[in-house]
């Protein structure tokens, strides 16, 4: 199983979504893969101080960030969590991943 999570909300609202964290952790625990795509205000959650994404990344989830949205918000790549991948063609990879590889897609 491969779960894709597309997040667009700011970190202040992602904190409310503990069920996503629980879902992703459960998928990882059962041997599945989780890919988290951060776009719009959710790119702010890729910074080192954000606990939710940090927990997902340390649980082995792949984390991808939209470069255009990151730059629009003045966030430097150097301030991001280790292992986060910043994508130039974010939506192309997202679409390919959702259609070709993922069994489930969740948006938050």
């Amino acid at each position, binding site marked *: 199983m491969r779960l894709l999570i597309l997040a667009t909300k700011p970190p202040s609202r992602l904190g409310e979504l503990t069920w996503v964290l629980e879902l992703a952790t459960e998928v990882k625990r059962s041997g599945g893969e989780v890919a988290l795509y951060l776009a*719009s205000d959710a790119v702010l959650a890729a910074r080192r101080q954000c606990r939710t994404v940090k927990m997902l990344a340390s649980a082995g989830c792949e984390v991808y960030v939209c470069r255009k949205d990151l730059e629009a918000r003045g966030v430097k790549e150097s301030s991001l969590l280790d292992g986060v991948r910043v994508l130039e063609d974010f939506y192309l990879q997202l*679409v390919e991943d959702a259609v070709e590889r993922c069994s489930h897609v969740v948006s938050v």
Partner: protein
Amino acid sequence: MKRLVVYLAAPPYTSQLAEIALDICEKALDKGYDVCLFLYMDGVHLPKRGQRPLCLPNAERRLSTLIARGLRVFSCARCAGARGYGSSGYVHGVEVSSIYKLPELLKSGAKLIALGE
């Protein structure tokens, strides 16, 4: 052909969600997928004819370009009617249909990306 359905329940020019939906549709068309955009709640404002944003990208124009490339667009009849839209107020190529169209589009393994609350 593989199908991607994008569900949008947010209006243009308010948040980034409509733009994201169009970005996703564009890339999915680039990949050669069968792409459907289902508009619900305030998402039904997207195909309105005659949009003239002053300093934002024109969503109507972009949507029309994607429709010309093969994007299929469905607008919930109840949501559209409640906001004063019928097919005549929309850009060419938008089908006003029931919410039951959504599960129909999702048959045979299509993937769904939902945007908006």
